[in-house]
């Protein structure tokens, strides 16, 4: 169990814990905005950690680059999605 | 085969094709107006063929039209009478229907029925027989429902339903008959020869008798006849009663094995025939309209013909078809004449009424078997074949019944035409009537020696005269006896049993309504989906068990 495997294990477990936190946040928080907050923060960081953890496992550099690409795209779509949801929630909140 | 034979074959083919050609002619607008005038011409080739051609001439159509025509003695006899009546009725119809709406349609149906009814008498193969039989039955609907009145439409509906039922019986019988034969479309002769041997012979026999009995109007399948024949216009009624029912007669003649004795089938046919004769006469007496009385008389006479054929079949006597055909010929001419007589009588009044009534009365009594008339000859020719004992007594009693019916007819005719305005029927209608009446006297006399074997003189002998007279005396006695119960007339509606059936109709109507409700439920999405799954499970189970 070389250094790299240990590193991967730690990062991936940390990522998983963050995902768990995000999900707990989703379930527990009262309103949309705070749930959004939990989701976008925790899950993106979790994904980053997992990607980081998997980097050493990759055979080639290209594999690593692709993983980072995945993470960036996930970030981009998560950010936009949460903005949109927040926009709708904000518009609905004054009337509710 | 010499040129004469081929010429004879062509004449035979012309008998069938001439009316079809004329019907096809109606398509062109120019020719359409002249067709009514030519109606009397269409059956002439058939008349010539019946008269001139000797029995046994045959012609086979080229390959795609698989049909062979052949002329034999019963066929020739019936063909002659039928062609003559068709021609006379054609002339009668031309003047009777001139100017009325739907004349062209009537002519087309008339010509198609004509082609079918004549063709059926001379066709020799099974598929051809079924084709022409269907052509005759279905196009006759056009004649029955021609006047578009409610009665005509109801009569047409009943006629069509029972005609299609008859077709179904016959089709199944023909299919079973042809199943055993090597050639897919065998000649009737060969198929019938193999009939006694075939395993399904009882089924075939029953279906054949049902199909042809329905066409001849034997009870209980006679209900359409008293409705259809009066509903049709006068010339059409003459032809329907005179010729169309003969399709059933020729069917029995062709498809029943007279060479080998079949006591079972023979007695069945004979008893049904006798019963029909009695019931026909009894119901006829209770009618008020002349055309309906004649229709019931047809039912009764056909009963007699069936009795003759039944007796012949039971005894295995090969001469029965000839005699039945002879009796049928006489019936064709007399009944056709009577229907035309009714038409002429209704149209004439004053001075002209008496001679027409006299002639009508003579014709009616001839039908009942008055000595010295052709009717007597017909009954005498048939007598020996019926044998002695209970069966011949029953036939004589039937003769008494028909005498009573005819007297009732004459009385009704006299009453109906009493207050006619002084007028005379147009010549174009009286002439055909006279021709048919004359033919009905002359032709049976001319054919009697060849058919019954003994010379003309024997018809005059005292013994034969007595055999005819006592049933008539009995008939007259009964008629006078029942004269007092005049009120009884008119209580039995036309098509007796049918009226009872129609009262049950509402109870029957809820079956289709139940089916419609079931269909409505079946076509809901959840049910259909569930049925699909059940089908999957049913098939799956079946396959697993079979594997």
């Amino acid at each position: 169990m070389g250094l790299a495997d240990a590193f991967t294990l730690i990062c991936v477990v940390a990522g998983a814990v963050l995902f768990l936190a995000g999900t707990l946040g989703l379930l527990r928080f009262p309103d949309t905005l705070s749930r959004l907050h939990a989701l976008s923060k925790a899950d993106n960081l979790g994904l980053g950690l997992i990607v980081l953890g998997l980097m050493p496992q990759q055979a080639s550099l290209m594999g690593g680059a692709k993983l980072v690409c995945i993470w960036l795209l996930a970030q981009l779509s998560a950010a936009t999605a949460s903005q949109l949801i927040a926009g709708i929630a904000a518009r609905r909140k004054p009337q509710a | 085969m010499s040129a004469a034979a081929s010429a004879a074959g062509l004449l035979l083919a012309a008998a069938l094709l001439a009316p079809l050609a004329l019907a096809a002619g109606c398509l062109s607008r120019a020719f359409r107006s002249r067709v009514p005038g030519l109606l009397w011409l269409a059956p002439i080739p058939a008349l010539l063929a019946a008269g001139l051609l000797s029995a046994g001439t045959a012609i086979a159509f080229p390959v795609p039209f698989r049909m062979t025509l052949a002329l034999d003695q019963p066929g020739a006899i019936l063909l002659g009478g039928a062609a003559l009546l068709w021609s006379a009725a054609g002339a009668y119809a031309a003047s009777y229907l001139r100017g009325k709406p739907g004349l062209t349609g009537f002519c087309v149906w008339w010509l198609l029925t004509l082609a079918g009814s004549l063709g059926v008498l001379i066709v020799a193969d099974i598929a051809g027989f079924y084709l022409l039989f269907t052509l005759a039955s279905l196009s006759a609907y056009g004649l029955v429902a021609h006047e578009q009145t409610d009665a005509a439409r109801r009569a047409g509906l009943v006629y069509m339903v029972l005609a299609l039922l008859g077709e179904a019986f016959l089709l199944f019988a023909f299919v079973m008959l042809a199943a055993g034969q090597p050639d897919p479309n065998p000649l009737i002769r060969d198929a019938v020869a193999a009939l006694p041997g075939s395993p399904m012979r009882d089924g075939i026999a029953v279906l054949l008798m049902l199909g042809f009995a329905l066409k001849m109007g034997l009870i209980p399948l006679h209900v359409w006849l008293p409705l259809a024949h009066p509903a049709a216009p006068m010339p059409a009624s003459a032809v329907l009663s005179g010729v169309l029912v003969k399709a059933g007669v020729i069917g029995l003649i062709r498809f029943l094995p007279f060479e080998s004795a079949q006591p079972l089938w023979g007695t069945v046919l004979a008893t049904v025939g006798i019963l029909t004769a009695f019931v026909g006469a009894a119901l006829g007496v209770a009618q008020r309209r002349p055309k309906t009385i004649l229709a019931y008389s047809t039912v009764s006479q056909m009963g007699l013909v069936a009795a003759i054929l039944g007796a012949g079949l039971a005894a295995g006597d090969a001469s029965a078809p000839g005699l039945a055909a002879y009796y049928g010929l006489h019936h064709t001419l007399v009944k056709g004449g009577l229907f035309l007589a009714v038409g002429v009588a209704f149209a004439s009044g004053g001075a002209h009424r008496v001679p027409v009534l006299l002639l009508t009365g003579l014709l009616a009594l001839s039908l009942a078997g008055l000595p010295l008339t052709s009717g007597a000859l017909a009954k005498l020719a048939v007598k020996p074949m019926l044998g002695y004992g209970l069966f011949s007594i029953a036939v004589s009693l039937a003769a008494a019944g028909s005498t009573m019916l005819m007297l009732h007819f004459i009385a009704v005719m006299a009453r109906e035409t009493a207050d006619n305005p002084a007028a005379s029927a147009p010549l174009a209608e009286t002439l055909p009537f006279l021709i048919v009446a004359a033919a009905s006297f002359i032709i049976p006399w001319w054919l009697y020696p060849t058919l019954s074997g003994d010379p003309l003189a024997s018809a005059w002998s005292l013994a034969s005269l007595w055999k005819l007279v006592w049933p008539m005396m009995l008939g007259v006695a009964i008629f006078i006896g029942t004269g007092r119960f005049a009120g009884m007339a008119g209580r039995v509606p036309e098509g007796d049993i049918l009226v009872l059936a129609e009262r049950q109709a509402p109870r029957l109507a809820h079956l289709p309504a139940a089916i419609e409700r079931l269909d409505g439920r079946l076509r809901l999405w959840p049910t259909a989906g569930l049925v699909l799954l059940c089908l999957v499970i049913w098939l799956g189970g079946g396959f697993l068990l079979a594997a």
Partner: protein
Amino acid sequence: MSAIALTSASLFGLCGAALVGIGLFCILTHPDLLRRIIGFNILGAGIFLVFGAVARRGAAMGLSGDPVPQAMVITGIVVAFAATALAIALLRRLASLTGSATLEAATPPRSET
């Protein structure tokens, strides 16, 4: 053929069978048409999983799965999508024309005038 591949293939095969059952149930009983279309997609997913299990069991010659059923599944997915698109277009048009999203009025249409 490693045992693991066999068992995981059977496992997904069973999952496919279950999804077929669920999909069929949704199609048969759900009155709402949109849900029924989703049911079709679940049924399709189930069927393709059965194909996938078959493909996985056929792994050989260094391949991790028999390519022929996989190709069929790809074609099947696209056809299923086209069917969903057509069904949804019909449903939207039906809703805008008749204002109802259910087909339960299975009475024969009135006479057209």
